[in-house]
């Protein structure tokens, strides 16, 4: 049998015919990047290919890299392999990577959500033979409410805090959630103040031509009284730090899909948990996979074992694969932390993470 067009290797997803990797986690010559989150866009590759809207954020996060950008639908050809990008709806500039060679089509979803958040280009299903999908929230207990409902809650909560004279801190990661929140706040209530990490990302996006609502960067000179009348947009890494405590008394809201479960919500000890995710919920995943019409679906990260089993039971041909994706919406330790490199938080990462060690899940799958 011929070699599959895309393979799962210890460096990332690899196309041997085109000699490039998709979202590799070890340094390679040619990397195609789905989006700019740290668990997908690593430092150290020689050439990068990404969507145009990821450009400035990638420069900001990775420094001077050799980057070529394309628009959605535009095709790049490498050794006969056609590469094109389609919107993934995950964050601004996130793309699904479509790879075609001799009539066989593979699509790598990266991370995606099926609901339109009003700021990321909405997800577009792409017909393919092989679909490589995430399943961060691949359990039926996850089901998202319409965005308008969530933001009604957020804005009401903010309003109440202003009335009660307490500061409002809303937490979401700096690329994606932060801008989604920013664009959906009711700015008649007050001004939006940003943590430096988020403002840096906002500035990168603005350089990229993205139009965002006005924000004000918090500095040591910011007046506590003024800030209290507005809303503070902060990244997860700032929770519980002196930086955040100095705005007290405050009410602190956490925006994440994990807030759907009471236990997870209590664990994060947020005053308010808003169930808001940039990943597809259970129904979103199933419908997205169905819409590709694929012969085979590969699940890279999330609840891979049970989701794979379920898909097989309802008639898909699904397989679990091991990758290192799944960072930006995981637990506090693993949550993005741009001031302190994520890796330093995790002891012996090289050893812990080496590819193929999590054989438990794969083995179980083989046995079925």
């Amino acid at each position, binding site marked *: 049998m011929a070699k599959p067009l895309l393979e799962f290797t210890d460096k990332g997803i690899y196309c041997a015919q085109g000699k490039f990797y998709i979202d590799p986690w070890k340094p390679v010559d040619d990397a195609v990047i789905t989006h700019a989150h740290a668990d997908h866009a690593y430092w150290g590759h020689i050439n990068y290919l990404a969507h145009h809207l990821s450009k400035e954020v990638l420069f900001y996060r990775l420094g001077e890299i050799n980057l070529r950008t394309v628009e959605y639908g535009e095709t790049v050809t490498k050794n006969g392999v056609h590469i094109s990008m389609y919107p993934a709806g995950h964050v601004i500039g996130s793309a699904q990577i479509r790879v075609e060679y001799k009539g066989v089509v593979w699509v790598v979803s990266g991370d995606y959500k099926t609901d339109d958040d009003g700021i990321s280009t909405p997800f577009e299903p792409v017909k393919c033979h092989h679909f490589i999908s995430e399943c961060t929230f691949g*359990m*039926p*207990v996850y*089901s998202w409410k319409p965005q308008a409902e969530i933001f009604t809650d957020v804005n009401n909560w903010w309003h109440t805090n202003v009335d009660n004279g307490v500061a409002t801190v809303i937490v979401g990661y700096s690329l994606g959630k932060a801008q989604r929140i920013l664009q959906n706040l009711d700015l008649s209530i007050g001004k939006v103040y940003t943590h430096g990490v988020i403002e840096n990302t906002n500035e990168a996006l603005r350089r990229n031509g993205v139009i965002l609502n006005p924000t004000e960067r918090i500095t040591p000179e910011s007046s506590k009284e003024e800030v209290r009348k507005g809303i503070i947009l902060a990244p997860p890494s700032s929770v519980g730090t002196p930086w955040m405590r100095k705005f007290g008394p405050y009410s602190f809201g956490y925006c994440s899909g994990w807030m*759907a*479960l*009471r*236990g*997870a*919500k*209590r*664990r994060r*000890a947020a*005053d*308010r*948990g808003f169930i808001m995710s940039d990943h597809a919920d259970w129904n979103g995943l199933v419908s997205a996979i169905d819409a590709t019409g694929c012969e085979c679906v590969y699940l890279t990260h999330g*609840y891979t*074992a*049970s989701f794979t*089993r*379920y898909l097989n*039971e309802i008639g898909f041909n699904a397989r679990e694969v091991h990758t290192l994706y799944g960072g930006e919406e995981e*637990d*506090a*330790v*693993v949550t993005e932390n741009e001031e302190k490199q994520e890796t330093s938080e*995790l*002891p012996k990462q090289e050893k*812990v*993470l080496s590819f193929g*060690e*999590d*054989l*438990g*899940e794969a*083995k*179980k799958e083989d046995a079925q």
Partner: protein
Amino acid sequence: MKAFAQLFLSLDETNKTNEKVKVLKDYFTNVPDTDKMHMLALFTGRRPKRQINSTLIRNWAIEASNIPAWLFEESYHVVGDLAETMSLLIPESPGSSSKTLTEWIAEINNLADKSEEEKKLWLIESWAMLDRQERFVFNKLLTGSFRVGVSQNLVIKALADITGIDAPALTHRIMGSWMPEDYTYDQLVQEQNAADNISRPYPFFLAYPIQETSEKRKSAEDVGNALGDADEWQAEWKWDGIRAQMIKRGGEIFIWSRGEDLATEKFPELHPFLNALPDGTVLDGEILSFQNGLPMPFNVLQTRIGRKNLNKKVLADSPVATIVYDCLEYAGEDIRYKTQSERRVILEKLQQETAYPEVFNISSLIKFNSWEELESIREQSRAMIAEGIMLKRKSATYQVGRRRGDWWKWKIDPLSVDAVMIYAQKGHGRRADLYTDYTFAVWDGDKLVPFAKAYSGLTDAEINKVDYFVKRNTLEKFGPVRTVKPELVFEIGFEGINKSTRHKSGIALRFPRILRWRHDKPKEEADTLESLMALLGE
């Protein structure tokens, strides 16, 4: 039910004590009196009788959610709470209901003599009338596991603010066996005396630990600095049994455990001595297994507690007696206001008069002249089958709940071993979907033998790191349990060790918990089964 569901949601939405109290007060002021009493019952562990067994509820929930049974089970492991899992998986419906909490509980209680089919129909219709949050608390009512993130103290505080009755009095009035069907809000807030309900126990007075963890060891000097003159204190052994309050009133006897379970029938050996007490007597003490006049280790008593039927063999293998240390009511008078020394005199008098001195023991006072002397006496605790030493201020009244000041426990340091984590399982509640429950092993030759499970002792940050490790170092999965690569070493502390035929290792530990993560130790340097066995002899 809407108000009750909202109460739950609001309590979940704040971590601040003052706000929780405010939320509780709002609830109390906005619902009918019968709802208040139902809420109070539920929040103090008095749940309605389970009318549908949970396997049936589960099966009907699986049917209603239209997913395979295995996926329901997997979801349950992710959520960590059955009621919540069901509320998330059953599709939302547009129905609604304005029934009160009282009405819902009455409906639940009416199910008692219904057929299975009728129960099912009722349940499916009920689910359709409730929104997600209501459905969650409704499922909690049905399945009975009612743990709320709010302490009884906060509920009492809210109620005290509203009624103007002081908290200790309210705490006392909600003790004992009452159900909201037979105890009204008016009765609760009216003047009362102890005789109104002859079975009602007093709230227990609980000691505060002198050293909260073994790392924070306190010397005799520290204790002296904190507690002052040794003369002002009485010391006793801290007995390792079941704390109990024993009541003789109106010719009847009642034995209450600390968890407010009525345990009178569990300890028939104590009945003769209690029946012989004068009416209007309440004693506080410890129930222990005794042999030849000496207390036996807790595990002997533990095997007996687990039994449903107390047959002759059980009674012969593990006969119980009491070591009493306080008297709360004498001649029908609540004497908790008297000093420790005065109550002690009364207790000694009662004990001298008993015809059952082998069952009615009294906790002897430890003679000591200085804190240094007491510190060295404390070293003998294990030999005394005691957990350490209790210190009680001679001038102290008998108070309500756990408070600093007059009663202190000075426990012995735990035993400890270094062990390797080999299995991990996801936790529940706050720890749902995180690997927090670990099994530990020690070396037996070149094999690792599991010997203990422990759930607590790590910080949240450490738990996150262990969880990260587990997810990336799984060797095998058995249902919810993962076998992990043996690598992480932890120091495990425990209070006691006993032989066990039920465990692979041949030993069972009492209160095992994680003392700390030994980042400095490679797995090869963990302890051996031999070294654990050596502790058995002590």
